[in-house]
């Protein structure tokens, strides 16, 4: 069978996956509510492995036991790495690049990636979050506007 040699005659068919989604937060809900209601970073701890997760989790990925104990973390932390992203989520070039940091929140065992305020950053700097005003918070991570250098 002959392949198409004429580029003008190439047929393409457009389509999509036209569903959208609603996701429950599960155990992380308590972190989001604490953020919204009290501006707190409330994670959870696995008593077996002594690991503190933020946002909170139902289970410990390592020992598979429950990670149900409440544990307060942050809100400050240390910046481990940073990047300036020059692409929008859809891949287009950004006019104003976005700064993002890899942050070790105080008291948490994992790391957290979030936006950084404009400016120059060096690894090792202490950073702290800036939250939305209480009345604008929705109970999601988006209640955190960005992190900025401590004392800035």
């Amino acid at each position, binding site marked *: 069978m002959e*392949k*198409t*040699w004429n*580029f003008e*005659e*190439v047929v393409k068919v457009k*389509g*999509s*996956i036209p569903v959208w*989604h609603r*996701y*429950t*937060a*599960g155990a*992380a809900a308590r972190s*989001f509510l604490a953020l919204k209601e009290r501006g707190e970073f409330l994670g959870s701890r696995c008593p077996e492995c002594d690991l503190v*997760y*933020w*946002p909170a989790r139902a289970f410990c*990925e390592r020992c598979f036991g429950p990670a149900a104990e409440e544990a307060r973390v942050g809100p400050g932390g240390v910046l*481990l*790495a*940073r*990047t*300036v*992203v*020059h*692409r*929008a*989520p*859809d*891949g287009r070039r950004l006019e104003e*690049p*976005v700064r*993002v*940091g*890899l942050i070790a929140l105080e008291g948490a*065992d*994992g*790391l*957290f*990636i*979030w*936006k950084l305020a404009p400016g120059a950053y060096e*690894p*090792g700097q202490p950073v702290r979050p800036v939250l939305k005003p209480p009345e604008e918070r929705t109970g*999601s*991570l*988006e209640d955190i506007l960005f992190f900025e250098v401590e004392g800035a």
Partner: protein
Amino acid sequence: MHPKIAVVGVGWAGFQPQTPGISYKELMFEAATRAYADAGLDPRRDVDSWVSASEDYHEGTSIFDEYIPDQLGAALRPAHTVAADGLHALATGWMLIASGVARVVAVEAHSKASDILSLPEITAFALDPVVERPLGIHPGAIAGLEADLAYSRGAFTREDTARVVVKNKGNALKNPRASFAARLSVEDVLAAEPLATPLTVLDEAPRADAAIVLVLASEDVVKALDVAPVWIRGLGWSQDAPSLETREWEEAVYAREAAKRAYQMAAIKDPATQLDLAEIDDTYSHKELLHMEALGLAAEGEAGYLVAKGYADLDGELPVNPSGGSLGWGNLLEATGLARAMEVVLQLRGEAGAHQVEGCEQGLAMSWRGLPTASGAVAIFGV
């Protein structure tokens, strides 16, 4: 003692940024036709089982396994897909034969990335919906942070990673399948358009289309065939925490764990001396260096130095990505690992052409499942 299982046929199609006028089915058919011809087998008579690697959102079709059988000769046969990399499919094929349920298995993976209009958004759709996606950034940021962390802790330098790009795109000049071959300097890479600092667009493998089929057979079948078998000596796959929060950021743990299993199976104690070549993930330039260390091809903190002094060059002590790697022939999504496996097989057969590594007897293929995962697989081949 593990059973002896060999690759007895390879076939490919595509390896272009676009494959216009050819559907994914036709691309698969072309690769499968070549692989069966290479093995001297008739799929309708001689192949017992099929494994294909695919992900729904890369195809734009839910339950994509529906559409794999016909063009592989697998209609009304024991065929299934794995939502995984081609090397996981290869491992699955190995297990099917080792378990005794099949003697000949065809393994397929493909990329029709050029059909996808919204790939960065789809990649970001793999992030945790409540904990990670609200950040709303291009997934390349994860690679940028990882590279920045490596530089700031002194694992290797920005120039070291640029040298990976120069090496791989240079090797690609000798590989007719590599669409992104180029002669570049370190300065060219550093001066390129930024993607997510410190990485530039040249540090990232561009996407491409291809289909790859490998035919595996048990030892008794191999004896009856007129082929030069390449034996699968080791297999391993693993993943670190899927969450960005709790995975290890300084080391490619998935590669280390996968390699540990593969080396044990292949009785490899000192990979850097026992392997003659390695085709390893270089979807981002810094990943090749992290992967070299995790795979034990370089000591911790030495991968950058070794690449700089030519150790991993095509004519170096341990050629790494002599084919040009993904930086040379493209990011093939789920097919990337199988493309690496095919490269190693061709090398061990002595059929790699201009990028042939002289006198090789044992080689490694390694894949990473791409952003945002911490998941990978390793296969060791030998003659």
